[in-house]
Structures are given as C-alpha cells and as structure tokens.
C-alpha cells in the first residue's frame, strides 16, 4: 500500500493542570491516506478534538511522531485547512472577504483571487450573500463560508471539528451531502471529528472509534457502503448497532468518571 499522508506513531498528549495530569491521548497509531474521509468518533473527553488539533498543529503532542507528507507537524498551516465548530469566520469581513483573506495572505495574484472566490461563491451557493457580514447569516450559511474559506487555499487536507454540531438536523444533512460532493470533486483528505454515530457512517470511509480518557484508538471500522448512503438500509443499521455499542461503552465510562468527579471538563 502507498505511504500514508498523515502518519501518527505512538502519539501521547498530556495536559498538566494545577493538581493533576490528564492523559488526553495515549499511544495513538494511525495512518491516513490521501483522499480518505476519516471520522474520529467518541464521547466528549475521548481526545478526538485533541487529535485533530495535533494534526492541525495547534497543540503539539507531548511525545510520539506526527508527520504529514513525511514532514513533522510543528505549527498550523494552510496545507491543513481547519473548519471549526464555532465557524470562526472573521465577523468584520464580508463573506467574500472571508474567502479571499487566506489567498491574500498567500500573496496570490489579484485576478486569481477574484476568480477563485467567484468560483467558490457559486459552488457553495453563497453568491447572493457575498457582501453580507457573518452576523447576518444562518449557522448553515456560515459553515458554508468557513468551508469555502478553507477550500480557497486548496489544501490537500481538511480538518473538521464537529463542523455541523450546532446545526439543525435538516441543515446538517444538506451540508453533509454538500461536503461529500466537495470531497469527491476536490479530492481532499478529510479528518472529521464527530460524536454522531450516524454522521460518521453517512460520511466516512473509515471510522476511528476512540476510548474515553486516556484517549486511545478503540477500533477502526471501515465503511464499505456505496454512496449516496441510505441511513435506513439494513447494512447501515447494522453498522449503527456495532458503532453504537462501542461508543456507548465509552460514554458509560465517561458517565462514571463524571459521577466520581474526576473529569476535567
């Protein structure tokens, strides 16, 4: 098999608080290949966002190696575009300015920026909103802008941290479908964090199920269903059962820890 694009070996992440240490990630080994859609699934506190932030370069591992295209990750960069749950659009910029900002940072020629922004505005159905400020948009529209902003830099890898978590169910489904369309059209590698079991099956090639603290890889479940996937098909439901059982085991550990008062969050 080809060399992995994202290669994670024995990664640990330990947070030190005033009176104790939290092992957020422990012995993570993971290989993600170019063009793959991988979701990190688990209850809150399982370190899935920590892992994503490590790949993104926002918070480096305490030990272990984490390489992207053979190079160790040391800082955030436009080759790993991040879509945040809170959208993180710049509220003082219009939709178009938000999309253009990254390209301006990269010193792309003016014509290129205009054309590319225009293309993305069209692709993500944002044309009528180009001169609006983020505060005037719905959650779904904001997340489209966030996705367009990342796509503008044409990163090989997209990191998405529960991007649709704050959206209503119908909007979420629309955006999931759009994401799949974008993923297959632009051929990106996507790492997608979620605690939605159905969402992980609906979207990804592989689901990485993570354990509650310390965060380890509990199982990697390949999803071999053809797209578009039907959430009501027997195969889908079977996967839902398998993954559901795994996640609920971890959730109950989370619950116990919470009742024992040992959670940090």
């Amino acid at each position, binding site marked *: 098999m080809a060399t992995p694009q994202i290669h994670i070996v024995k990664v640990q992440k330990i947070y030190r608080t005033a009176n104790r240490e939290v092992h957020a990630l422990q012995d993570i080994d993971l290989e993600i290949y170019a063009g793959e859609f991988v979701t990190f699934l688990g209850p809150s506190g399982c370190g899935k966002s920590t892992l994503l932030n490590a790949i*993104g370069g*926002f918070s480096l591992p305490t030990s272990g190696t984490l390489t992207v295209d053979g190079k160790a990750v040391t*800082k*955030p*960069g*436009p080759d*790993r*575009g*991040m879509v*945040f749950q*809170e959208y*993180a*659009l*710049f*509220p*003082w*910029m219009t939709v178009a300015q938000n999309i253009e*900002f*990254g390209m301006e*940072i*990269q010193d792309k020629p003016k014509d290129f920026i205009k054309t590319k922004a225009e293309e993305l505005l069209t692709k993500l159905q944002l044309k009528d909103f180009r001169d609006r*400020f*983020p*505060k005037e948009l719905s959650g779904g529209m904001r997340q489209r802008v966030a996705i367009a*902003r990342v796509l503008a*830099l044409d990163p090989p890898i997209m990191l998405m941290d529960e991007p649709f978590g704050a959206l209503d169910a119908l909007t979420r489904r629309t955006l999931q479908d759009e994401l799949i369309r974008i993923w297959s059209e632009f051929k990106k590698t996507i790492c997608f964090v979620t605690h939605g079991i159905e969402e992980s099956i609906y979207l990804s090639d592989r689901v990485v199920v993570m354990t509650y603290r310390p965060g380890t890889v509990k199982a990697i479940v390949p999803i071999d269903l053809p797209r578009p996937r039907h959430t009501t098909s027997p195969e889908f439901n079977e996967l839902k059962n398998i993954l559901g059982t795994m996640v609920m085991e971890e959730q109950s550990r989370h619950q116990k820890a919470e009742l024992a008062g040992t959670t940090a969050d």
Partner: protein
Amino acid sequence: MSTDALATAPPKIATPTPASPSRTEANIKRFAISTVVIVVLLGAWEAASRLGYVKVQILPPPSAVFLKFLESIKPQEAYDATKTNYLQWLVSGELIHDSISSMGRVLVGFFIGAGLALPLGLAMGASDLVFKLMNPLVQILRPIPPIAYIPLSILWFGLGNPPAYFLIALGAFFPVLINTIAGVRNVDSIYIRAAQNLGAGKMTMFLRVIIPAAMPYILTGVKVGLGVAFIVVIVAEMIAVNNGLGYRITEAREFFWSDKIIVGMVTIGVLGLILDLIVSKLNNHLLRWHRGMEH
C-alpha cells in the same frame, strides 16, 4: 361603563384606518410627548422671571437668553469686503468664534492623546513584556484627574493653547489606552487560530485580525476619551486661555451677565450632543459587522 353595557354592545368591526394620516398623527404625538416637559419648564421659568419671583440678574427669562443668543452669533462688525471674505465675516460672531476655538482644542488635544494612547495600548495589549513594564506607571498616573494637572501644566507650558492641549490630551489618553489594552487582550483566540491556519504572519495577524477584533473596545475608548476631552476643554479655558466657551462663561460671571452664562452653557450642551451624535454615527458605521449593532 358597566360590564353589562360591554356584554350587550354589538361586536365592533375594526375598520382599517388609512395609513398616512395616522402616521403623521403618531409623529405629532411623539413630538408632543418628547417636548412637553421642556415647554412647560420654559414657560414656568419665563413666568417666574417676569412675575418677579426670581431676580432677572440671577435667572433671566428664557426669552432674554434667546435674544442674547441671537446677539452673540451676530458678527460684531459690519461686513467689509476689503478686510475679510464673507464666510469669515459670517462666523465672526463671538459665540461662533468661541465654539470653533473650543472644538478645535478638543480635536487637537484628543488627537494628540489618542494618537499616543493607541500605539501604546496596542503594544501593551499584544506584548506581555511591554505590559509588565508599563502597567505600574499607568496604574499610578491613571487615577489622577486631568484637572489636577492644571497647576503643573501652567508652570510647564505657560498660558494659552499649549496647557489646554496638554490637559485635553491627558484626559483623552487614559480611556483610549485602557480600552485598547482590554480590546487586544480580549481578542477571541478562535480568530487567532483561524488566521494561523490560513498562514497569517505576525504583521497580518496584527493589522487584519487583532486590530479589527479589538475595534469595539477601541471605539468605546474613543467615545469616553472624547467625552473627557470635552469636559477638560471647558475647565482649561476657564483657567489658562482667554477665548472659548469656558473662558466666556467665566468672564460673563465677573460682569454678572447671567444670560450670557446660560447661552454659553446651552451651547456647550448642544456641541457635546452633536459631538456624541457624530461619534455614534461613526461607531455604527465602523462596527456595522458587530453582533450587537443595529443599522
């Protein structure tokens, strides 16, 4: 009306009233409500003064104050094309001249004060080292009211505009400084992370992310700073300068011209209101992206 009458009354069918007359009516009503207190007060004042309840020297009637106002805005000399142009002549009335002097001082002083406070505030907000170096000094100097600097400012700068500029700049300095520091320190880290992710360097981060994100705070500082500058200008003019509205009302007191004092005070109030409106408009425009802002 008894409940019986209500119960037996035939149901009324609401007839739509034409939109435009009711709208004018509403406008008239709103105007009436917002002016009624002022009108009654002015009437009572006029009456009290004219009927001799208060001495005219202590409190002249509003009509006399208004006449004084008209007199104060009139040019003092007849128009002479060989000496001045028409516009200069038109604004040569004492009150207009004083207003322009006062506002000019506010603006010069404010821009000196804010111009120094903004870069220092940005540096103190962005750098821990600069903050630690400068903060003790700022905290010691900040509680001293600008007015307490008057004796020193006259010793240092003599009389005239320089001490006034100094005091006004000082008054504007701290509100802008403190708010700028707070603005930079309170920038949501999510914007920093998003910009880092897009590859923003230090300079881009500062100019295009941190400063705009801090803008709501900075503009609050500007608003407060201008307000303080406006207070300080009047005080400075009462002591160090021989024109401007502050000087004029102090001078009028010496001659027992209470009408002139009131004209000056009302003018100060109106100018303050105008300044505030301009700043609010600017605020609303610059922060039109901001969540709490309505257009």
